[in-house]
């Protein structure tokens, strides 16, 4: 049975979130958009209604605060929940300032993990949970380990949640996009072959949902790249400037 329930997008105004919203809007499923900026959320919702005739329910929401009230209000409960929230932060700032590091941890791990657990608790059989994690979580690198370790935790969380929910007929999908041309990477030069457009990530998620995949790299080449990076012995890895 194909999933026709509403699609909840947490982080709906991120570049990938906008692309996902527009991709799902074309499928006729209802959209529940969660984002912090009320004005932009209004504009994007109106655009989705006008352009795609989509049913859109926007909620101004910050994942760092309590979610229980919002989730209790959703009726029917979404058939698909997609979490896109994340914060790269500046690594040097995080290393020097524990408040900054804590915000990176909470934004990438605690908050989305607890949100998805709360969703999982309410989800009916046939539902799908999609967590956007990162290749940065596959191995901790000297230049990015606050973000990387939080994503590693999130990846492990999704893996465990997948096992638990499998028995209940809920599919949990882990997405590792690799480099994506978004504001998060603004000003960074990344190799073209490894860099996806937000629309590509959205298309990959729709495909993964249809195929009920477990873990996907948006561009398959990332599977190879990360396999090599993971295979480097630690003694060697620590000397690499990565």
């Amino acid at each position, binding site marked *: 049975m194909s999933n026709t329930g509403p699609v909840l997008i947490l982080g709906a105004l991120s*570049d990938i979130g906008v692309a996902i919203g527009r991709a799902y809007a074309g499928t006729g499923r209802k959209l529940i958009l969660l984002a912090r900026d009320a004005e932009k959320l209004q*504009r994007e919702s109106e655009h989705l209604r006008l352009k795609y005739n989509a049913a859109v329910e926007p909620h101004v929401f910050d994942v760092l605060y309590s979610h229980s009230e919002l989730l209790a209000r959703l009726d029917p409960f979404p058939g698909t929940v997609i979490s896109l929230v994340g914060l790269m932060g500046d690594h040097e700032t995080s290393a020097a300032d524990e408040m900054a590091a804590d915000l990176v941890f909470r934004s990438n791990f605690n908050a989305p993990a607890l949100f998805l657990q709360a969703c999982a608790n309410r989800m009916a059989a046939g539902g799908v949970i999609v967590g956007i994690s990162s290749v940065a979580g596959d191995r901790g690198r000297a230049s990015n380990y606050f973000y990387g370790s939080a994503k590693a935790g999130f990846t492990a969380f999704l893996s465990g949640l997948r096992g638990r929910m499998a028995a209940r007929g809920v599919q949990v999908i882990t997405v590792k996009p690799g480099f994506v041309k978004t504001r998060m990477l603004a000003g960074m030069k990344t190799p073209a072959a490894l860099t996806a457009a937000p629309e590509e990530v959205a298309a990959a998620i729709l495909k993964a949902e249809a195929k009920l995949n477990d873990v996907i790299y948006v561009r398959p080449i990332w599977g190879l790249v990360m396999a090599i990076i993971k295979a480097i012995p630690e003694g060697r890895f620590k000397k690499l400037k990565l």
Partner: protein
Amino acid sequence: MISGWGHYPLAEGILLDADDARSAIEQIIATPSLIPRGLGRAYGDAALSNLAMLALPRADHILSFDPTAAEIEVEAGTILADLLPFLLARGFFVPVTPGTAQVTIGGMAASDVHGKNHHGSGTFGRHITALTMLLADGSQIRITPDHELFWATISGMGLTGVILAVRFRLLRVAGGMIRQTATKTRDLDETLAISESSRSATYSVAWIDCLSAGRGVVFQGEHAPEAEIPPTPRPRAVPFDMPSFTLNRLTIGAFNQAIYHTARSGSALVDVWRFFYPLDSLHDWNRIYGKRGLVQYQCVLPHESGEPGLRQLLAEIARQGLGSFLVVLKLCGEEGQGLLSFPRPGFSLALDFPATPEIFALFERLDAITIDHGGRLYLAKDARAKPASLRHYQRLDQFRAVRERYDPQHRFVSLLSQRLGL
């Protein structure tokens, strides 16, 4: 390095990226000068700066759509190719379209683009009913055609401020098909005669073989009554810059021969994508011209002196011996109200060439003929002309006066505006 569609010239400025009006204001205040930039489809230096260029790629929302009044308001970063499927599905089309759909609506307004229906429908600006602008002082303003800034902004090449939103009237259509009629011609006389007699057609354009005596194919088009909506095509890519020897007299000659001989006189039903945007199906086709880039010469000659001027231009090009792939001849109708609007009643001629020193020298000679015959160059295509070539932009001083009132410190500056002293 950043360039326009022609890959010539290259600019050193940084590309700033604003999310919305709020962040655009911060960028404007933090930079001595910048130029707004859409998709960078102007051929030359209209959207280039050695300091900064400002794009708002996320300003791509439909703000309102009124099917009863046939009007739509969109943010300026909306891409025409993304908007068209939406419009076609609801029985509408844009009133004026340029020859590519890979442009932003803001860019279409700033260049006051024209299309194959200029003789009947005028430029895009004629159909715009309101603009929302971000001005040099950081304020936002919504203006209608009765405002002095309106007609300085339409055709103003981004020099009066950042266009944030555009409201314009739509054309009602049954579907996305065009009834196209092609007529092959033997020489320039016949090309001109048939072009002239096609003024009653909604769309009309001629392709001419500049290596022959002006033979060509005249295309006419009408929106077809069929309700069919064609699928949105996916472009194929030119994967790399072609080596520069790809284009020479021999290959261009062969290409032109091939077009002429494969074109069939007669009528056919084609979709809007093929009729209006044939080159969009080849993504990055500009790379055919290699690393050195391409330059386009597009001028308009007034009716009175048009024909002799046109003959002189074609003779000069033929004398050079280097033909051009694409020579497009179009009849223009009434002049628009944009202060720097390009088309005026007469013929418009557009030719693409590789950007080489010989071609720049040729363009200088073409400029002399154009100006001599009271003609104008299209700013959205130009990369190299001198200030003197603006002589027949009769409302330039009016444009300067309005710009001076709204941007006295010249915060909005492009390589084009500096080169031509706009």
